């Protein structure tokens, strides 16, 4: 199976404090990879390295390589703006742009990315994205309504549609369901399964059952290190590392 991301020896620091330690992992194409671990283990920091979100953080330093389709995303050749169109992100708190309608929220990535698309093209892409995000039926008659007037779960699906509209290859999700109710969470988990046919997805989660439900591969982080990464079935029934087993059985959280 082809790898989309190959992470080699990734370490990172905020100032003098080291957050990630010599990570090495592969993320396969069209797979769903969960990244789990206790608070502070570096999983959010890790995922934000994959789309260079830390560029804006003062004091951030990294070493090692992150190869996207063979090219190091931190090399001089790569334009971070372009990178982020290929690697999209959905955040923990749904954050649709205030003062923009549902339609405008999904379209904004298209409009501001420099492409000269006709209004018809944009409408079509907006509809397609909302369909893929399983939100179209609920909002198709309310496209001009404000994005923030939707419910929490709908807002998160709107953010997913917004990310999908720029047609990325990879979708990074940082605890996408932790601010949502169980029903919305279930809807989004179903959505992730469907999306994995077309996209490569990496999900940070602190919910082990969720990791078990949705992923092909699970990576377990502890204090900035990748302890173990394997098929989700194996990780939860027969983990190789004792620390993984202790985390899964709830010895620490």
């Amino acid at each position, binding site marked *: 199976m082809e790898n989309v991301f190959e992470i080699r020896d990734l370490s990172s620091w905020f100032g003098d404090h080291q957050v990630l330690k010599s990570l090495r992992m592969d993320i396969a194409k069209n797979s769903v990879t969960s990244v789990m671990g206790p608070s502070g283990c570096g999983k959010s920091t890790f995922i934000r390295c994959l*789309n260079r*979100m830390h560029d*804006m953080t003062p004091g951030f330093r990294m070493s090692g390589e992150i190869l996207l389709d063979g090219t190091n995303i931190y090399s001089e050749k790569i334009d971070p*703006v*372009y*990178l*982020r*169109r*290929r690697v*999209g*992100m959905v*955040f923990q*708190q749904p*954050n649709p*742009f*205030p*003062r*923009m309608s549902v339609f405008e929220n999904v379209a*904004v*990535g298209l409009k*501001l*990315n420099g492409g000269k698309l006709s209004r018809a093209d944009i409408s079509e892409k907006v509809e397609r994205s909302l369909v893929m995000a399983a939100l179209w039926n609920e909002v198709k008659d309310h496209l001009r309504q404000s994005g923030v007037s939707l419910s929490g779960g709908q807002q998160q699906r709107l*953010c997913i549609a*917004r*990310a999908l509209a*720029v047609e990325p290859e990879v979708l990074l999700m940082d605890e996408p369901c932790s601010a949502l109710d169980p029903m919305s969470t279930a809807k989004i988990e179903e959505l992730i399964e469907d999306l994995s046919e077309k996209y490569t997805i990496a999900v940070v989660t602190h919910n082990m059952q969720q990791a078990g439900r949705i992923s092909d591969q699970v990576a377990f982080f502890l204090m900035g290190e990748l302890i173990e990464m394997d098929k989700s079935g194996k990780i939860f029934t027969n983990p190789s590392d004792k620390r993984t087993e202790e985390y899964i059985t709830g010895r620490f959280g």
Partner: protein
Amino acid sequence: MMGTISFRRKAADRVMKWVFTLCALLVVLPLFLIFFDLVIKGAKELRWTLLIDLPHPVGEPGGGIANGILGTVAITFLTMTWSVPVAVMAGIYLAEYGRGKLASAARFAVDTLSGVPSIIMGIFSYILLVLPMKRFSAWAGAAALSMIFIPVVVRTTEEMLRTVPATVREAALALGIERWKATLRITVRTAWPGILTGILLAMARIIGETAPLLFTALGNQFWQTKLDQPMAAVPLQVFTYAISPYEDWHDKAWAGALVLITMVLMINIAARVLTREKR
């Protein structure tokens, strides 16, 4: 024994309550008096002709402040033409990039300028524009007013941009939008009602300013549209009429004041309606 103390304390409490109530009444009383006088006295001379006619010589009845209205509009518009872009861009810099020495110095400069009496801005414009040009002009008036307008709008723009949550900027960045586009088309757009309110309130303020115009725009008795000549303005006319020795000019002063306060209030109300709409 206990009873007496209780009575004294209760009495003190009741008296102080009325003292505070009285303070509140005294504070709002002038407002009612002023508005009452403005309406009653201003209405005396208030006819359509006031808004359309030019000032008549002393003794001749009628006449109006049309040139002043035009002048106020022209000078205000002129001021805002360059002041709005400068102030908003400076505000954007302070909010979005504002961590270095330039930002600290600029912020201090804004705070300083905000506290300078408006007549000093008139002196500034006089030295820089009136003296070299050897004449009073609308330009000079606008220059003085912009020194009042700009600090206010820089401050409100920066404040409003800071209220935009970091999550908005983060989401924009994650979509692969260039930072400058994200700043203008998303962050500023989100804060826009607040920024516009700040601009309108600053506009209402400079419309009412008299001191900076006293020796820059100077005022003008006639209809005048050239920007490099002295120009009339409603506050200047109110002042001139008020301190004159002529009774009928005093009436005109009240009428002009009524027109002026109407303009100021309308803009204030527009500004507040805008903030409400945001919700």
